[in-house]
């Protein structure tokens, strides 16, 4: 068993060595494809994670003036609750809000006293009513000037960024994926041509189809997996670069950490799977194999 595996794997490596340039091209493009797709996926994951900490589209944040009575607060809550399109109103005291912020961003909140006002969290049942609801609330005396925040600029920007990322990443990544499919397929076809003597002899002495085909599949798997491995390193490097860049804008944008095992694991596995599929197509084509 091990003996047989050794033969099959060494056949695959011989082919890779004989076929250096084609292998190089196949590995490079599959690497680019996985880098683009993987990079996009992880960037998307990071940004989407950040967006989740922001108020949602269906939420209006209402900041309140300090000078007000409990009765006024209660009355305002009732009034808001009756507005069309409002699902729920909740009071978030400045202490609660500060505690939450401290938990989420410990480095930024450290050593400062609480600058936050009390606020209402107004949940909407209908986004289209947001403008009307905001206008009605803005008129209330206990609401701060400019104290009604909803679907903020950050939120809009983020969702635009996410959309763009999705499109550009999918388009470029898909294109590269297609290119690398053609190249891996070609690399395997070239191997079949380059090794036609060996393949013919194997077939003449009665080697099974799997003995002939498995080395070719292994070759495709190796090409895809190496592409995925290099892509993982590129993503790692890109992430480090991003951290360096963002360090200069020490602000609210924090670059999240990268799940290393997930990055390497998923990209290598995807690459291998991809190489396997491409090479399966290459050996399915009956022309080359006797």
């Amino acid at each position: 068993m091990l003996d047989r595996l050794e033969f099959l794997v060494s056949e695959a490596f011989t082919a890779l060595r004989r076929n250096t340039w084609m292998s190089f091209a196949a590995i490079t493009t599959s690497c680019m494809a996985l880098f683009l797709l993987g990079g996009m996926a992880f960037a998307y994951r990071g940004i989407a994670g950040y967006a989740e900490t922001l108020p949602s589209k269906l939420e209006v944040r209402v900041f309140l003036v300090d000078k007000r009575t409990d009765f006024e607060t209660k009355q305002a809550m009732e009034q808001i609750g009756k507005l069309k399109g409002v699902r729920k109103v909740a009071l978030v005291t400045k202490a609660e809000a500060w505690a939450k912020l401290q938990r989420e961003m410990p480095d930024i909140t450290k050593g400062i006293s609480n600058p936050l006002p009390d606020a209402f969290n107004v949940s909407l049942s209908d986004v289209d009513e947001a403008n009307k609801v905001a206008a009605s609330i803005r008129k209330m005396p206990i609401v701060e000037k400019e104290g009604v925040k909803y679907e903020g600029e950050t939120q809009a920007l983020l969702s635009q960024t996410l959309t763009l990322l999705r499109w550009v990443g999918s388009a470029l990544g898909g294109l590269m994926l297609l290119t690398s499919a053609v190249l891996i397929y070609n690399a395997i076809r070239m191997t079949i041509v380059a090794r036609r003597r060996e393949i013919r002899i194997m077939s003449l002495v009665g080697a099974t189809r799997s003995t002939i085909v498995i080395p070719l599949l292994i070759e495709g798997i190796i090409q895809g997996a190496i592409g995925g491995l290099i892509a993982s390193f590129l993503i790692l490097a890109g992430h480090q670069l991003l951290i360096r860049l963002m360090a200069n804008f020490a602000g609210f944008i924090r670059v999240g950490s990268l799940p290393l095992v997930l990055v390497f694991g998923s990209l290598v596995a995807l690459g291998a799977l991809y190489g396997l599929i491409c090479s399966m197509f290459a050996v399915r084509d009956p022309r080359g194999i006797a």
Partner: protein
Amino acid sequence: MGLSLTDPNLIVLRGTLGFLAGVANIEFKGVCVEYGKYVRALTDVSFTVEKGEFVFFVGRTGSGKSTILKLLSREVQPTRGTVSFDGLDVSNMPERDVPSLRRRMGIVPQDFGLLPRKKAWENIGYAMRAVGKRRIEVRKAIEPILENVNLAHRADAFPTEMSGGEQQRLAIARALINSPQLILADEPTGNLDADHSIEIISLLQELNQQGATVLVATHDLLVLEKFSQHRVVTMEKGQISHA
């Protein structure tokens, strides 16, 4: 009644007798082979070969000799008719059974089919590994196989460093890795001078004496003269003209 040797009735009779005797090893029945639409390589070919026979297939280039050998190894399938070997219907067996069929025969291709980057013994070893033999088995088997064809002293030579006769013997050695009951040799003396030709046919004859059925395609008249004791099947334009 004039019964010629090519009379179809006689051929059928021989086949039937062979079958009854339980020794018919190879049987072609009404075999036609067409390559594409217009090239007819064989037309209605029928014959039998008994176990342990040594048969020459003779004829001009293009007369269909190689095609006959390739039908047996299932490199070619007939357009019509059947080819059987050892009771197996070679022409209709499923693709997945072909490897085990080929392990029962030793195929010596016309162009030797040696791997130029591998030494003589590696050429044998590679073929053995390809049919699933383990490393240890290979190491043990190579020496006797090379000795069998008088090549033990050339084990470390590359094919390009070997003479035509040596290359041919190496190709025969490779055909022996599965201890075949049937050896198919296509123009084994095609590229050799007279002395080496005789040496190669003698080698095949020895293997025949050890029990293998041997089919040789050739157009080498010198060889036929020298080994006239064996059966000769003459081919002409895809048909058997003399059996």
